């Protein structure tokens, strides 16, 4: 995925500034840092990273108990006129990304926005697709997909669960 990103942005003839990687908390944030590590390793150029919490922009706030906000931390370079790559663990309905696009608009005006996800599990509810996908995992709507990362969960894993309690959309 890092090679793809380098090919598409960092080393492109059209641009000299590296892209900005913004992770969507909780698990997108460490994923963005990992992706930046790889890009630095392969191209020698480290893209700035940050975190963008989208809770305040979600369209399902009314239906759920109030949730705690997560960290938003934009890189000092800002996002104006940069290529911003949103990084998340699982792409499902697309609603989180919709909220992220709205949140970005309030922070500035990127030159372009792209999307990188570790797992694309299908079942989109909005016209949104990822530019970079780690793995496509065909799932049933009732199944659950969780990504575990050593930074947040102590180990790396992608778990596919059969339908149990409530098949919520991944956060």
């Amino acid at each position, binding site marked *: 995925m890092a090679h793809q990103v380098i090919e598409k942005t960092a080393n492109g003839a059209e641009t000299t500034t590296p892209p900005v990687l913004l992770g969507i908390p909780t698990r997108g944030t460490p994923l963005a840092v990992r992706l930046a590590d790889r890009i630095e390793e392969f191209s020698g150029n480290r893209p700035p990273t940050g975190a963008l*919490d989208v809770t305040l*922009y979600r369209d399902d706030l009314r239906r759920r108990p109030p949730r705690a906000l997560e960290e938003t931390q934009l890189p000092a370079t800002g996002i104006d006129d940069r290529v911003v790559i949103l990084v998340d663990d699982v792409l499902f309905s697309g609603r989180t990304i919709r909220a992220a696009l709205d949140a970005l608009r*309030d922070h500035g005006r990127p030159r372009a926005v792209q999307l990188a996800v570790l797992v694309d599990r299908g079942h989109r509810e909005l016209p949104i697709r990822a530019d970079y996908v780690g793995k496509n995992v065909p799932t049933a709507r009732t199944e659950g997909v969780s990504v575990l990362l050593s930074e947040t969960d102590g180990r790396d894993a992608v778990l596919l669960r059969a339908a149990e309690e409530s098949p919520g959309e991944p956060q």
Partner: protein
Amino acid sequence: MKHLLATDGLDPALATAVLDTADELKHTLLGREVRKLPTLRGRTVITLFYENSTRTRVSFEIAGKWMSADVVNVSASSSSVNKGESLRDTALTLAAAGADCVIIRHPASGAAQRLSGWLADAGTAVVNAGDGTHEHPTQALLDAATLRERLGSLKDRRIAIVGDVLHSRVARSNIHLLSSLGAEVVLVAPPTLLPYGVETLPVTVSHDLDAELPAVDAVMMLRVQAERMAGGGPGQSFFPSAREYSIAYGLSEKRLGLLPEHAVVLHPGPMLRGMEIASAVADSPASAITEQVRNGVHVRMAVLYHLLASEGAAA
């Protein structure tokens, strides 16, 4: 959270959640192009003020607007209250007009509590923005937010609340909130300005400001509330003269020197410069008085978020 009426009995975990939310809101709004969040779009917030206020009303209004709620301000002096309408009827009118939340300030202690009972059927949230000499919970939350910011944590911090504790809803809210968050509270006041039953509060009491200052992490100065003292003028029956009060309990420049280096000076406002706090102290680096106002907006945004963002919370 359904209403916010008092900090007495407020779950410390919930208070911490509100403070954390306020921190994140402050963070996310910092340096951004558009200081507006869509979170409370379509919600209506009404401020109903039976007493004068600058910072509380303005910061609730800004908080609501930055979260995209529609904010309507009603002040008793320009409403049907002047024609003799009761609080209950006014409240039911506001609920019928579509208020999702009523923020009330009232000179009678317990007004917010009564209001929440009358509005229970309408499902309208009530926020107490100061009721008589009872409580002012959002002020205590913003004080806690400011102290957390300056001191890192409230655990085992020693905080002196100085002055007219008797008439102060700010003091009462802070006593409960700060002690529930792990701080030690000491009240410093003349015996005439301490409330009845002070021995039941989670505080220690002192009458000697100079003796307390070297050991505190923060000092919160209270305004002498002349308007609540029978007889009118300050000190008519509670202390001999304004000058004597100021000498015994005012935070002078000399007293500022007694405080530890890291100590923070707070004042809920409005300040009487030269009475309870010297002008130079209010403007010193130790003073967090303007930070309090700034944090007030974020704390009130966090309160509205926890009350209104989720329909599940109201159920």
